[in-house]
């Protein structure tokens, strides 16, 4: 019996972004998976080398639309390590507030999408409706519903004035209420249990072997969280706990995300307390120049640790900027989670890691379809691009 190839992608209702997973199936059972990337490569790292440090913030903010503050957060941490800058307390609190609000809206978004993937469109619509107040809060604080443009080297761009704090608290209360409702609806539904429990199990060993991060790792009992392991911004000065679950299945991942929202609400509320005790206005320090050096920065994005590495040479451009998004590590676990499961289980197991392809895509290579031999790798593609540019240049010269 030959194996059927069931494609998930490159364009598929399961995912909002282009990515191809070929499921080699026997009947309904998935026997093997092939992951084909390269549909969404945008050359962000290379582009970053042609931007000034202030511009890079706006560039990395646009790597991902949903976790649009994690990348600037990590980049800011990275640049402040190079410049050896200590940012004011007020900026630390504001950074943490923005980061945690983003976690809430991202997790609500995931809950909705997971519902949609299971055919439960009510959860999809409800979760996205309850996410709306968070986005409105963002608009009030930063002026944007998404891509907030709040971060800069040495602090934040806008202050959260103290008179806005009661409104923020009120919105957080409604968000908490709605989270209670959603948590109840998801945790107590017997059909959701039947669909998600025991599906796509990743053991602790798998997580460590694949180096998975974020809620994917925490749902398998690995308490990895940069906010706790290497505290940045205001995370060291507030009380919260890392949510973990032991089962490692899709249900555990949903559980971890839902409970993390409560932790985020608690963190924000403590940060607001902190803000109230500090005088308004002092939200940044002036950074005159960036010295030569290398720096690394992490931030815990909703999907896991975002890692940035920057090398500078004393000018106002990065010489090398390396970005690693959590989905890059997490999507690889899909193979382990779905082989041996049915197609229905495979799709939700993929959705459970909350893959974000626009963060992940790095470099494409072409391969021969029949023999599966690599034809062009990264270097060769670059050389091909240079050859073509040269050809065009010569053509233009001749036409002149």
């Amino acid at each position, binding site marked *: 019996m030959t194996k059927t190839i069931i494609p998930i992608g490159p364009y598929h*209702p399961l995912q909002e972004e282009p990515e191809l997973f070929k499921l080699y199936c026997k009947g309904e059972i998935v026997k093997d998976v092939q992951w084909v990337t390269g549909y969404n490569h945008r050359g962000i790292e290379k582009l970053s080398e042609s931007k000034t440090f202030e511009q890079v913030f706006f560039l990395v903010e646009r790597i991902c639309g949903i976790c649009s503050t994690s990348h600037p957060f990590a980049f800011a941490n990275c640049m402040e390590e190079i410049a050896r800058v200590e940012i004011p307390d007020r900026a630390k609190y504001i950074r943490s507030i923005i980061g945690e609000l983003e976690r809430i809206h991202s997790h609500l978004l995931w809950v909705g999408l997971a519902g949609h993937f*299971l055919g439960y469109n009510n959860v999809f619509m*409800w979760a996205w409706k309850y996410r709306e107040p968070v986005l409105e809060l963002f608009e009030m604080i930063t002026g944007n519903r998404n891509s907030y443009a709040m971060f800069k080297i040495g602090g934040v761009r806008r202050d959260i004035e103290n008179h806005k704090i009661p409104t923020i608290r009120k919105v957080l209360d409604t968000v908490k209420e709605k989270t209670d409702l959603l948590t109840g609806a998801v945790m107590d539904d017997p*059909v959701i249990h039947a669909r998600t429990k025991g599906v796509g199990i990743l053991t602790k060993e798998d997580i460590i072997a694949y180096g998975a991060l974020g809620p994917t790792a925490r749902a398998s009992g690995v308490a990895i969280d940069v906010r706790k392991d290497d505290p940045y911004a205001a995370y060291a000065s507030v009380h919260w706990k890392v949510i973990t679950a032991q089962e490692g299945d899709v249900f555990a991942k949903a559980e971890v995300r839902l409970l993390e929202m409560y932790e985020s609400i608690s963190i924000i509320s403590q940060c607001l307390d902190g803000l109230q005790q500090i005088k308004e206005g002092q939200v940044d320090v002036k950074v005159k120049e960036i010295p030569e050096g290398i720096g690394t920065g992490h931030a815990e994005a909703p999907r896991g640790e975002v890692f940035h590495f920057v090398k500078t040479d004393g000018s106002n451009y990065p010489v090398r900027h390396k970005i690693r998004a959590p989905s890059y590590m997490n999507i690889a676990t899909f193979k382990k989670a779905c082989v041996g499961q*049915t197609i229905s289980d495979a799709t939700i197991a993929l959705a459970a890691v909350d893959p974000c392809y626009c963060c992940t895509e790095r470099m494409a290579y072409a391969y021969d379809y029949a023999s599966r031999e690599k034809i062009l790798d990264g270097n060769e593609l670059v050389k091909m691009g240079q050859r073509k540019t040269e050809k065009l240049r010569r053509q233009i010269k001749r036409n002149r």
Partner: protein
Amino acid sequence: MIFSTIIYFLIFPGLLFASIAGGFLSWFDRKVTAMVQFRKGPPVLQPFYDFLKLLLVKETILPAKGSPVVFMLMPILALVGATLACVFILLPALNITSGFNGDILVIFYLLNIPALAFILGALASGNPLASIGASRELKLIISYELTFLLILAAVIFKAGMRINLQEIIMAQADTSFIGSISGILLFIAAIFCLQAKLGYVPFDIAEAETEINHGSFIEYSGSAYALVILTKYILLFTLPVFIGTLLLGGLSFTGINIVYSLLKILAIVLLLILIRNTNPRLKIHQAMRFFFVWMNLLVIIAITLSIFGR
């Protein structure tokens, strides 16, 4: 005689009437779903716009690797099957003609034709996703048909061993079958069967948008898909009417009874919509277990109760 038969099939209570009624029920479904989800919902004529757009405007693309004749024939067969079932149900139910002996079994087989035709059409398209959808649909038919047949058997038993739809309606002249415990159990099982027959969540396994891209129907487009959705409209009208006739005492279009009849159909459809909106999709083996074990058990209990006159 032939003229009236053609009228019955094409106009009333057949194709035209059933598709308009089904279209409105489809709008009702979308409107209620939208209200549950804090949306506004489509205008009343939206299902008809959808149908006409697919029929007249959209291009019909034939699959390159399939068998185009079978592929295009199957939606027509499904439509004919659904319409015939509707005619055979509504003629005795509305007291236009008296039907014939054994028509309930003919209806049972006719109601199967759309699902079987969709399976053949999917397999003729040569798409791997469609073949997965077809295999799931086949498994689903195997699981819910037994339950549906047992429900029919129970109804025949309760009506005093009569296999004529009109006599079954007569037997419910004083109290409808749902007035007894066994009737309620049968109604519950029947609602889940309808859910599966209509391909609604939690039994939309054969279509499963986010898993296999609408499975069985993935290759259908343009006028062929227009016939598919027309068949679905007609089924959305026919199946609740059938259950209303079997268990809720039939329909009547005289005087105040019109309101009751409409309310019966709307209530059944509303129940279907609410189940659809409060459940995620099951996996195929879960759906099979649900029907083989739980629903069959429920119907057998109902039959046993009806033997004791409950």
